[in-house]
């Protein structure tokens, strides 16, 4: 097993070891750039607190965005698709069985197609 493994995909090559080496080099370069920045930040003074234009900082529980509110834009844009798809997942057992038998019937029509008709 040689050191650098190149995976041959259908069209090109992918070599993860060289990618990792490149990634580490990029990290080192960015660390060197960071070191040339400002160094005047004291951890114990008021500099660490967040600035909200003078308003009071809200409760910790209210700041955290809950999962129901994320990706609102995405679900709103695809509203018609979701309003069709979510009610299909009814939760009723007989509907699940009907879907199974329906798909079996469709596959039967497609695969047996010419032989029956």
């Amino acid at each position, binding site marked *: *097993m040689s050191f650098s*493994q*190149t*995976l*041959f*995909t*259908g*069209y*090109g090559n*992918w070599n*993860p*070891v060289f*990618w*990792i080496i490149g*990634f580490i080099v990029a990290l080192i370069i960015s660390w060197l750039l960071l070191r040339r920045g400002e160094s005047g930040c004291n951890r114990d003074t008021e500099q660490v607190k967040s600035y909200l234009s003078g308003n009071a900082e809200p409760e*910790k*529980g209210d*700041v*955290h*965005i*809950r*999962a*129901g509110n*994320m*990706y609102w834009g*995405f*679900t709103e844009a*695809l509203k018609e*698709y*979701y309003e069709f*798809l*979510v009610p299909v*997942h009814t*939760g009723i*057992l007989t*509907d*699940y*069985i009907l*879907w*199974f038998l329906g*798909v*079996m019937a469709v*596959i*039967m029509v*497609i*695969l*047996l197609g010419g*032989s029956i008709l």
Partner: protein
Amino acid sequence: MIQALIMDNLPALLIAVPLLGAFMTPLTGRANDTVRNIWVILISFATLTAALLLTYEVLSSGTIVYTFGTASPSLPGPPDSGGILFRIIFAVDAMSVFMAVSASIVGFAVALYSIASNSKLSGKDGYYALILLMQAGILGMVCTGDMFNFFVFLEINSLAGAVLVAYRVDKGVAVEAGLKYAVLSTLGGLMVLFAVGLFYGQYDALNMAVIADNMQYGMLDKIALVLMIAALAMKSGAVPMHFWTPDGYSMAPSSATAFLVVASQASLYGLFRILFTLFNVTLNWALAGWIIIILGVLSMFVGVTMAIPQKDVKRLMAYHAVSQTGYMLLGVGVGLAVLGDETMMNSFGMTAMEGGLFHIINHAMYKGLLFLTAGAVFYQAGTRNLNRLGGLGHHMKWTMLFFVIGALAIAGIPPFNGFASKLMIYESVFMFSPVLSVIAMVVSVLTLASFVKVFHSVFMGPKLPEYENIREVPRPMLIGMGILAFLVIIFGIFPQAVVDTLISPAAEALVDQGGYISSVLGGA
């Protein structure tokens, strides 16, 4: 002498050891909790060793055919049997051994995880017995060479899985999920048995190699093929028959869910075995291939779009399991659609199949890791509702690290293993039909989006007052998750080694029907 005895009987030991362990677990449980834990770890480690030894044997010396009841399948049967083998054989070729290895690794990690996550709960005897029974069922399904034996192990799997889903009767909701899983699995199993009966009625044989040898693609064979495709695709969670998957996976205990994923993949193995080894080029490969591709594309897209608005962590991950099953169906479907065409098969068909098969073992590992981290969060925080969690990254650093590894792997970010298999699927499917490849990439982007949502909701954010006292999970759980994370990283850094040793032999064994028949029937 003992070593030769073990090495000769490895396929039988692979099934016998978990079965013995499953039935002896309640006895060891009478003594002490610690005795039972040690027994379970010992049995699953022994199964892992047996699977690895069997892998080494098969990959170095070819398909192993193991006959139950006599020394070799070519010994003469009773004089009036008509020359047809009546014995049950296990035909372990490279594809079977590939699935067995992935099942055993996940089984060992799940056993390590369970001894810590179950420590304060009751009813542990039944739980461990069912996990070991399910492991025996999965290993039996992938190693067998006999159709009715496949059905029996499929039923063992379904029943053990249904009881595990309903195990923690949580105000009855888990039992509802278990009922749906059991009814659908039984109906699917009966359809499989009907198809096996059709095969027996036509060819007077239950052995896969004998049926494959005599296969004419008549009307009854087509009906049997349709029944098998529909039933096995339903058991593995393909859309639009996937409705039991989010219910079942979210209500099962987390370590059992990681194992139910492997059970679904065993049904996927059954589907591929029927399509490639039983039928091969006798069926209408372009049409059947396109049916599998359509099932795969629907699964990918519907799975990931239903996952984005979910509020329950495990239900979201279950929809992602449906979506990733679509990738496997897409890869192998493209391989099936060009099965009879030599040039196309050599240029991208084999790579598409290798991508689909590589995705099976990658999925078992990173999906198992993700379900185990979700279980760790539930163990400490007591809730699975994403609207109520937050800021756990301050307290549970190792769990957060494992979750990040799993989420980046499932989204297909380099250098993890998801990227390697997805790249193979993208590039070979692109040469078959560019539209499918574009859909696959869009689904990958949406996968990353939903896992960023989960990561932010669960781990990021300020420390919340209600989770002040949360510590890190106990050490055995971390070790179980660590094994899977380590393998995710290793498979990502050295993908070519994995593809050369495990996946290429498996893909070639699957496509090569003549080789399978000749190794079982002894060169007939």
